[in-house]
């Protein structure tokens, strides 16, 4: 069976979800959105899925639409939380995981979704962080992702503006700043997967068509590599089937450049090896 990078990437995000977690994604995040449904329909059927801008609990949407605030996304839900019910739960510590992305991401997992360039007169004004600058402090664990690692402009030495806080900002560590959540646990990119063993990103897995040198060249902070660096585990047939049925409109693809969408892999000889 062959599969594409966008499908594999979504599965890699899904696998950061642990079986019993309550999980949330922000708006404008199709890959994370699809990943949560993949997790719930494969390895984490008992998770609590909070659907982004709908605050709907465990919905079964007929498809993922191109906007995060659409009634299709609450179809089949147990109920919808009020806006304040969700955010209250998140800031008092009842939400275990959130997916976060950024136009810039540094080694501590700080993210910038506000502006590239000087804050007073930005070169590019980005959309903004939604709920991130409070939630990044209080949600249990964060899965950070980007589909633009290869550009060389996304994983940076220092963010021009810190919207959502990672393990350490210029003002101090999470403990010093009084945060109650654990911070970034994973950083998943279209090139590989990082963990944060000492509060700083470390490459632990890479996609098989990418070399460590390519990743180093695309990374703005000094690249730390795990001793037991492994290829990303390929998606199962069941995971791929869910990606394709849940995201029949293919909205996840809007996060990728044409070059990344052209990456095709296959399971060889029934093995779990992608070559």
């Amino acid at each position: 069976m062959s599969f594409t990078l966008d499908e594999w990437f979504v599965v890699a995000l899904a696998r950061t979800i642990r079986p019993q977690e309550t999980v949330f994604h922000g708006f404008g995040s199709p890959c994370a959105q699809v990943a949560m449904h993949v997790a719930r329909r494969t390895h984490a059927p008992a998770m609590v899925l909070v659907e982004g801008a709908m605050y709907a609990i465990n919905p079964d949407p007929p498809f993922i639409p191109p906007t995060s605030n659409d009634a299709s996304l609450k179809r089949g839900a147990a109920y919808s939380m009020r806006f304040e019910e969700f955010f209250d739960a998140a800031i008092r510590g009842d939400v275990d995981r959130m997916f976060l992305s950024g136009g810039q991401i540094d080694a501590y997992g700080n993210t910038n979704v506000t502006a590239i360039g000087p804050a007073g007169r930005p070169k590019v004004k980005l959309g903004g962080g939604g709920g991130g600058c409070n939630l990044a402090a209080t949600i249990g664990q964060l899965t950070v992702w980007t589909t633009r690692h290869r550009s060389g402009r996304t994983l940076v030495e220092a963010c021009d503006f810190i919207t959502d806080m990672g393990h350490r900002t210029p003002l101090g560590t999470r403990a010093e700043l009084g945060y109650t959540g654990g911070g970034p646990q994973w950083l998943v990119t279209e090139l590989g997967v990082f963990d944060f063993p000492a509060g700083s990103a470390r490459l632990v897995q890479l996609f098989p068509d990418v070399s460590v040198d390519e990743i180093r060249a695309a990374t703005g902070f000094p690249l730390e590599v795990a001793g037991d660096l492994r290829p990303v585990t390929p998606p199962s047939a069941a995971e791929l089937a869910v990606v394709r049925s849940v995201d029949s409109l293919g909205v996840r693809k809007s996060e990728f450049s044409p070059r990344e969408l052209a990456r095709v892999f296959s399971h060889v000889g029934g093995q779990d090896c992608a070559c």
Partner: protein
Amino acid sequence: MSLQPQRDKRAGLADAVSLVRDGAMVALGGGLSARLPMAMVRELVRQGRRGLHLVGSAHSIDVDMLVAVGAVRRCEESYVGFEQDLGLAPSYRRAAQEGAIEVAESCCVTILAQLRAAEMGLPFLPVRGIRGSDIARLHPEYAEITCPFTGETLVAVPALRPDVALLHAPSGDRYGNLHLEQPYVLDERFASASAAVIATVDEIVSPEEIAVAGVTIPAHLVAAVVEAPFGAHPASSYPRYAYDRDHLGEYLSAAQGGPEDLEKYLATYVRGTEDGYREAVGAARLDALTTWSQSTSAWKEIFS
């Protein structure tokens, strides 16, 4: 303001929107592509309003259009854009980069706390987070405080009391009782935190019908209610109609194209009346947006 739950609040769009003064702090209801108060936004453009301080959660064409025509002094939302699908908000982005608007970007929890303070008549509420984020640098009005009970350092955020909240609902009655579908986003909080609420509804129905459907926002909070069919378009107003992705694309092309293209869009759709707006969009297109409930394939077709 004394409570007036049983006064007839029906008004025309122009009269209702004239309650918004130049320089007012205006809360925008809905979010992203849903229940944006677009008929009122278009009327603000027609009336040439200036110097507005916009407050909201996550917004798109509503904020971008008001910024495009120079109606806005200060933007205080958690997000302005067209999501992953259609990208950055062109007029908002340009104005922010040129320094033509004050960008007081905020965060959902912070705005929620500020509205709750206003609802309770309190000067501030404390929140966690923000410290360490550069969002704090955009808000010199925030202050760090020490909790008198635990000694914890928290961020005090001041009450936010908009002069007016502009809300759109699929239905309401003549007294201003509004029925909304989930998600309500911040509409309920805006309604009680703001000095006045102006509402558009796709249809004014009987008080009995609203009572059965459920009152989401009660009449005593609402100053005026205007019947404006497709008043959220191109945003959605479920259960009546889905959002119009193609129209958002048309607006974005115009806003990206520069002043001439934008003026052409405004002349075609905005400068006239709401009747003219619906005519320009076309009955066939508007009807198609109401077919979402017929089948999954019909629903998907709207977004393809």
